């Protein structure tokens, strides 16, 4: 992993080779350690170092070329810059090119943990052992994955811009299954710090889920149900929603924020007043960079504020056309919650389903944001405020927009990660009218 000075030297050296007026360098170096386990034993594991340097060249008439190299010798950098410049000269003018930004004042973000950055397998094996012990104690079979990564990113351009940042990340997920495969439970922990990972707790949760699901599964008819979605399920839905705030798509009739007949829903109250969705790069529990995709300083941004569609995501080009300020992108999503606990949500539900997480989500229609997916690793019936029987898995066809519109209560948000959309900070929610399309026999 490069230090700030090493990164600066590499970027300066690459820019020094540039002959065209525009040159931007993006440098990424990381080191990660991981252990994978299945059938109650470690299967594969590794330690690896990776690096890449991306060179984006621009001619004075706005033609672009890009080259990415990972050999970082002087000769490789020189050849990489020549390659990017050659491609730029061959390409045609990009009408959406924006002038290079000069030096920026980037915020200082704190999401690097030095223990995590230097941890090796010996810091992870006790957590794996705790999960495996938990599985064996309950006569279950565990599979899972624990990892940590440390990353340095740097950016610089010919106009004098420079930024450098380091961050760490870690996670432990595990799945426990009964020996015949009739039930499955899952738990996930993700954090900037490996110190927050707790194998004993992760193993206990997935074992409890698996054992609770081991009885005869009820097969309810497909239809619309009140559901309590645990944070991992909410995280995937919020990820799909957050990625749909692009101003261009909204204004050009291609998203759920487009209005029938033209125009957009900007400024409209589309959701209950307790729904606030925002990006928060300063939240220290999520990895973030001090700059967004446009290289402008990262900042907090509300997309939905108290139920109102507050902002669209403008890149620099579309913002210049719309007379708006560009936005830093829809990463680091936070869905604000309420003070309820998961138990409160269960107690307040007369009949519904408790859903652990989702799987294989794909978009069906951008204008409604209808997506399809499946439930996985624990669906339970709630009757008169109590969790009663295990239920089969389901395929569902539903829109995250409608889910948030039908949300009645939320817990406090926590960092969570499902199967599809990366990490976000989200609560568990109770939502009505969730469309379960068909039974899935999968466990």
């Amino acid at each position, binding site marked *: 992993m490069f230090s700030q000075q090493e990164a600066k030297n590499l970027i300066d050296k690459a820019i020094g080779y540039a002959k065209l007026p525009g040159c931007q360098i993006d440098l990424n170096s990381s080191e990660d350690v991981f252990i994978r386990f299945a059938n109650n034993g470690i299967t594969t594991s590794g330690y690896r170092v990776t*690096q890449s340097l991306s060179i984006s060249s621009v001619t004075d008439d706005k033609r672009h070329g890009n080259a990415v190299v990972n050999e970082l010798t002087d000769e490789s950098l020189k050849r990489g810059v020549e390659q990017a410049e050659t*491609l730029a000269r061959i390409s*045609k003018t990009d009408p959406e090119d924006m002038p290079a930004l000069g030096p920026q004042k980037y915020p200082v973000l704190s999401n690097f943990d030095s223990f995590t950055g230097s941890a090796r397998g010996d810091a992870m094996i006790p957590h794996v052992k705790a999960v495996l012990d938990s599985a064996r104690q309950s006569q279950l079979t565990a599979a899972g994955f624990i990892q940590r990564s440390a990353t340095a990113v740097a950016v610089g351009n010919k106009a004098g811009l420079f930024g450098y940042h380091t961050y760490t990340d870690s996670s432990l997920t595990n799945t426990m299954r009964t020996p015949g495969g009739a039930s499955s439970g899952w738990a996930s922990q993700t954090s900037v710090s490996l110190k927050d990972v707790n194998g004993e707790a992760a193993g206990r949760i997935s074992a409890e889920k698996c054992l609770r699901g081991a009885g005869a599964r009820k097969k309810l008819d497909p239809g619309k149900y009140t559901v309590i979605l645990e944070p991992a399920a909410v995280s995937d839905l919020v990820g799909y929603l957050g990625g749909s705030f692009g101003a261009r798509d909204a204004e050009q009739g291609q998203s759920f924020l487009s209005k029938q*007949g033209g125009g957009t829903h900007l400024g409209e109250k589309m959701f209950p007043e307790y729904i606030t969705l925002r990006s928060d790069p300063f939240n220290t529990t999520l990895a973030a960079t001090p700059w967004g995709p446009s290289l402008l300083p990262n900042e907090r941004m509300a997309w939905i504020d108290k139920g109102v569609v507050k902002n669209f995501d403008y890149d620099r080009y579309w913002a210049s056309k719309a007379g708006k300020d560009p936005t830093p992108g829809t990463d680091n999503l936070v869905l604000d919650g309420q003070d309820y606990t998961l138990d409160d949500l269960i107690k307040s539900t007369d009949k519904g389903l408790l859903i652990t997480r989702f799987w294989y989500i794909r978009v069906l229609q951008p204008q409604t944001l209808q997506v399809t997916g499946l439930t996985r690793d624990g669906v339970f019936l709630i009757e008169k405020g109590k969790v009663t029987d295990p239920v089969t898995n389901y395929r569902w066809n539903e829109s995250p927009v409608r889910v948030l519109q039908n949300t009645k209560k939320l817990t406090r948000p926590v960092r969570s990660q499902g199967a599809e959309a990366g990490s976000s900070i989200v609560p568990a929610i109770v939502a009505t009218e969730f469309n379960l399309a068909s039974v*899935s026999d999968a466990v």
Partner: protein
Amino acid sequence: MTKTSWMPPVVTRRAFLSTATGGSVLLANRLFGAPDASAAKPNPALEKLAEVALAEARKQGATYCDIRIARYRQQFSGYRLSPERDGKKTDEVPFVTDQQNFGFGVRVIANGQWGFAASPLVTAAEIARIAREAVVVAKANSVLQASPVQLAPTKAYTDRWTSSFEKDPFAVAVDEKLELMHNATSIIKKDPKVFAAFGFLALRAEDKYFASSEGSSIQQYVVQVWPALQATAVDTQKNISRTRSYQTPPVTAGWEAVAKANVGENAPRIREEVLEHLAAPPVTPGKKDLVLLPSHLYLTIHESIGHSTELDRALGYEANFAGTSFLTPDKMGKFQVGSELIDIFGDRTNEGGLATVKYDDDGVLTTKFPIIEKGIFKHYQTIRDQAHLVGETESRGCCYADSWSSVPFQRMPNVWLAPGPRDVTPNDLIAGVDDGILIEGEGSYSIDQQRYNFQFGGDAFWEIKGGKKRGMLSRVAYQSKTADFWRACDGIAGASYWQQFGSFFDGKGEPEQINAISHGCSPSRFRQVNVLLTD
């Protein structure tokens, strides 16, 4: 193939080629050089570097070691044509990127346990360090092993192999590629009712050297190309949008495959069909017969048969991520997955397949093998360390990684459906349908973690009524269960209609790896499948 007449004023094509492939002091270029189909043996410089890893691992107590030194090259170029904010002017945005990724990974068995380490610094000193790291990892993890690793035997090979291609696509000038895509997207966008056009050309090349402590020394080169086009139409009054793609198969081949794809020639049809799709009435849901074309059915094969017959899934190795399989080992040799018409093969030897190589990342000579015979599930996809778990004595050559920095594991071979009788045509299949849908191309796709329940959309849908193909439909998806679906197959067109499609983006494993895969089939008919109306 469209030829370019445009030449940039500053850089000649000759100058570009010298930058792209000319003599270089870069280590990756020195080790792998330009593609050379005539070379019969691996580069001795690669063998010398590999010996450092093998010797160091042996010294540290490893009982097995292999090293892969690899270089991956990718080039993406193309155009997006979409309206500016005022909705009148069209922005024509070109893009071009060249990417290279070079490094090595060392895999060892020590104390009966796998260990792996990888680095981008391809020097003897770093190779020795990384080999030691891999042994440290293996020994540390051996305290929690379920059972010691057992490798099915394989022969030792010394060989050099190159995938078949006529013209190196990386050596074709980028201006020619951009012009091809500019022409095609401009044809689509010519009708102002079409909202946007997108076209790209993806090239991929893999130089890989493999050496093992069992005596193998193998250098392979694979080159792949993929051109594609997509049109989008928007109706703001109805607040809907539809797409239509010219879905050409990604293929292990050279520039000649791009020429054969006839991208520009297909652009006018895509332009017309996206507007027809936008105006198409919604489907009436219910049970219908489906005739599925290869550009669509390949993905159904991939998801429902390809993944369910991966042995590592069936054994629980993927339980925490991609999932397990409804095809458990007790079903081998007896379970009826499909109708008697269904013969499906795993194959890493077939011409043009994205998973086609001569040797896998275990150093095993690749093969073709039956997965389903007359509808019965026969064999899993296997690798050296798992074959014995289903009583087999050799690997079927399905081990590979997506990068030098990734751990090789069980990945899918090309999985293809055998064609039906020679005299069966797609029209015969349609003629036998009273109320059904003809589906082309891929749309949304989703399947559960044991590969029972799936839901697929498509790129284009045509109503079939009274044995005739009618107009387009919209908002179609079908839901089924894998065995129900394949048992409902009652017609497969003959070999002359057989086509191979594929994907560059098949995900599996933790950390997740993305691999390329092909699936061939002829148009096929499925009876009484549940069709849904989507939003």
